């Protein structure tokens, strides 16, 4: 590891200024990806901007009707320890509980998981399925984009020099959601494939469904699930959802699995996640 400077700004303005002055600077929340990458020589920032001391980035605020504001630096454990958030978004609480182990969850943030832009990021497919948006601030002001459009390549996101992610906004949900991943071990593993699904029901039929996948393309991807709208809740529909996911996946063969196997997993996981989301939607009524 090479030398680097460290700065811990107290407000967004200072953070943006530091990030603007140092084009190779990296923001640090939990550091659970960044420090590993620096040790491995994959990133060599000359400045680390610790964003944990900025109030807006530590916000965790749920308001029925408005949704959830999830600050970019909020560590995972705060999500599943917050009863209001866990009740409103049980699928999010579950995802916060499967990223890394307990110690990692004390530091790692969903915002960091998003910014790290790994194809295998566990939180991103669920955020996409939940219709989440990313609030970004930078030298030229603030902007908001869909999480679905946030990642552009492995390890690369839409943030421009000087920009930081402030928070993730998740709209209120009327249905159910679930993220399922496949890992050969039971915990502490990287998804071979993952599927995030949300669904709303109407008169026993699917009103709308959203599906997103992890680990089967250079970025987490959104599956066009519009053809499921209006479909009855039955095994055929679940199967069809799986087929849509498998068709949308563009996996590669690597040490985590073969392309064919990953495509197959997309179908299985999507079907199972949708069934689980439907059950949750029914329960929440």
């Amino acid at each position, binding site marked *: *590891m*090479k*030398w680097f400077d460290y700065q811990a700004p107290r407000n967004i303005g200072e953070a943006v200024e530091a990030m603007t002055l140092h084009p190779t600077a990296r923001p640090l929340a939990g550091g659970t990806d960044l420090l590993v990458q620096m040790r491995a020589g994959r990133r060599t920032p000359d400045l680390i901007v610790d964003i944990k001391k900025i109030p807006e980035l530590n916000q965790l605020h749920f308001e029925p009707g408005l949704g959830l504001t999830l600050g970019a630096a909020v560590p995972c454990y705060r999500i599943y320890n917050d009863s209001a958030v866990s009740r409103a978004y049980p699928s999010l609480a579950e995802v916060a509980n499967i990223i890394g182990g307990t110690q990692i969850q004390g530091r790692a943030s969903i915002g960091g998981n998003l910014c790290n832009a790994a194809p295998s990021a566990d939180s991103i497919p669920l955020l996409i399925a939940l219709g989440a948006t990313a609030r970004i601030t930078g030298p030229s002001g603030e902007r908001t984009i869909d999480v679905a459009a946030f990642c552009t390549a492995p390890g690369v996101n839409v943030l421009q020099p000087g920009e930081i992610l402030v928070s993730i906004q998740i709209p209120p949900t009327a249905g159910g959601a679930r993220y399922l991943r*496949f890992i*050969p*071990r*039971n*915990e*502490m*593993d*990287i998804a*071979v494939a993952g599927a995030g699904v949300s669904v709303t029901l109407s008169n026993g039929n699917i009103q709308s469904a959203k599906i997103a996948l992890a680990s089967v393309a250079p970025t987490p991807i959104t599956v066009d699930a519009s053809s499921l709208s209006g479909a009855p809740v039955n095994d055929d529909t679940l199967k069809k959802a799986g087929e849509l996911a498998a068709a949308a996946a563009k996996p590669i063969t*690597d*040490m*985590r*699995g*073969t392309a064919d*196997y990953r495509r*197959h*997993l997309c179908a*299985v996981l999507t079907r199972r996640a949708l069934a689980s989301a439907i059950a949750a939607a029914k329960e929440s009524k």
Partner: protein
Amino acid sequence: MSTQYNVIGTRPIRHDGADKVTGRALYGADIQLNGLLHGAILRSPHAHARIKRIDTSKAEALPGVKAVATAADFPAAGDKIVDLGEGATPLSYIRGNVLAQGKVLYRGHAIAGVAATSAHIAEEAASLIEVEYEVLPCTLTAPDAMKDGAPILHEDLHMQEFGKKTDKVNNVADHFRFSIGDAEKGFEEADLIIEREFHTSTVHQGYIEPHNATVLWNNDGRVQVWTSTQGSFVVRDTTACILDLPVAQVKVTPMEIGGGFGGKIPVYLEPVAAVLSKKSGRPVKIVMTRKDVFEASGPTPGSYIRAKIGAKRDGTFTAAQAYLAYEAGAYPGAMVGPGAMCIFAAYDIKNVTVDGYDVVVNKPSTAAYRAPGATNAAFAAESVVDEIAEKLGIDPVDIRLKNAAKEGTQRVDGPKYRRVGCVEVLQAIKASEHYNAPLGGPNRGRGIGIGFWFNVGLPSSCTISVNADGSVNLVEGSTDIGGTRTSIAMQAAEVLGIPAEQVHPSVVDTDSIGFTAVTGGSRTTFATGWAAIEAARDIVRQMKERAAKLWETEPAEVNFENGVFSKNGKSMPFAELASKIGETGGPIVGRGAVNPRGVGGSFAGAIADVEVDPETGKTQVVRFTSIQDVGKAIHPAYVEGQMQGGSVQGIGWGLNEEYYMDTTGTMRNSSLLDYRMPTALDLPMIETIIVEVPNPGHPFGVRGVGEANIVPPPAALANAIHQAAGVRLRTLPMKPSTIMEAVWAK
């Protein structure tokens, strides 16, 4: 025979327990010395290349760098054959693996070392060393490396065949054959013959503590080494050999060791740190990263095996044959010999032929791993046995019992067993609650497997001195990787008739104890335990002299039983007599120095229950029992720990662990995240059944217990998966995608 023991068979708290659980124990990387420099190693990015030129000038010029070392800094001693604990090996191979000479033979092969005032500077300096390579094509598996036209690793390595050097240069270091009876005739007598092919991946021992070494080349010419190792004397002798020094000029202090499993026998860093220390005049510490551990220490061989067994309709095995090609990695020594000895070792078969091939490939030089070679072999043999049982409609335990090895059975490599516990292990499986329990759900299967591993003797030393308070200090040279401080202290305590807590064991440096061979081969409780017994007996003999002096009689007239000296109604417990050693003649020191025969090999079995997700191919181990003949369990809790540890490693080997290599010879999963050893969340509590068939060759009946338990698990899992998912997997690991692909192909 039932022997009453006071200490043996009890479960005292381990002597090093407090230090270990409070974090006070000092491991290799904990050592701090004044003026300490930090080292880094430059490693090859290529799996096979000729080194055309090394330019270290930029590294040397970097501020903070104090020394740079390459193979050119090693003394130019001529090549010779040395035996440093793992069999006879040319010194050039050992030295060449420490720092590459002329060629790099695997990705991660060490090329140069740097010492600097900080680890970061050392790392940066290493990256400034310029190496010009002529990249060569690589060969990564035994079958590929044996093909005509395969890239040749060692142009001067002529195949040895049936004990004779040939003029063939084909990456095969050795082709040998073991044979008893007449296999061809045996197969003619069979009603059913099954022959299958198996592939197993390279796997790593996965010890949590990375390799490390700290060396001070002192001004008086003595070289001091602090390291975590399974054999301090091996480190001493290897380091001395490479540096061309008399052995006694090197002193090795073994630090606590965070796991070894055979992988911490070879020397990697010590000679480099020594040269860097000599050049800089300061102590130098080098610690491997996890990536280095995977890429540049010694995993266990991947293998290609063909196994064939013939059986009569009643299940009697008439003949067996096997072909084993093991990947040695960069230098010869693939442990295929033990694999060949063990593949059919659990069975009494009269007609057996086994061919073994020791094949060099462009992967790290392999090292021992818990029963090295036997797990691969048992996976093959036990899968075939299971298939025969299935085809003949015989219970898998019954067919094994029918053919089980027993006293007098001749193994394919010649020796006949003394009293062994193979039958008793199988009977314990059959009688177990687990084997008779319902499976408890769909998609589940149960499989068993059995296996054998040796026990070696080799030299061990021990001294014991008596304290006036009735306790004793025990000094030994066996580094403690599995609770051996306690299992050795308990044997001394049993002889002395005192509680285990009254023995204070210390593992000391190579200047402070007689030669002691490695902690390996399941030998430590057996052999160093024996040295402790001898030392304790020496104490008893001297104490009898003191009692005789007090009671004005002859030593031969003094009785000693259960810790009490007595003669004609007079008696004195050990502690009381110990308090009088000053007045009866001064200090008492007992010594034990042994090289024992009488080793007792161990049979182990496993019962595995699995549930396979039919849609994802993921295997969940729902229940697992390890069964082992341990001779006599000195400390049953540590014996159970060994059985559980070996089982867990065997499960990892069976299900997910592998060196995932790309075609350039780069390991793509060289981190604990992607290497996928099982965690506590992936395993049920491993149940244990200790079987005790005492080894007639040891005073307390001890057999080696550390290794045989890893042999059966992959086979037992394969047999269980067959029942659960309907597919026979003949490739390790049996990862989810492999299972699904087999299901699809059905």
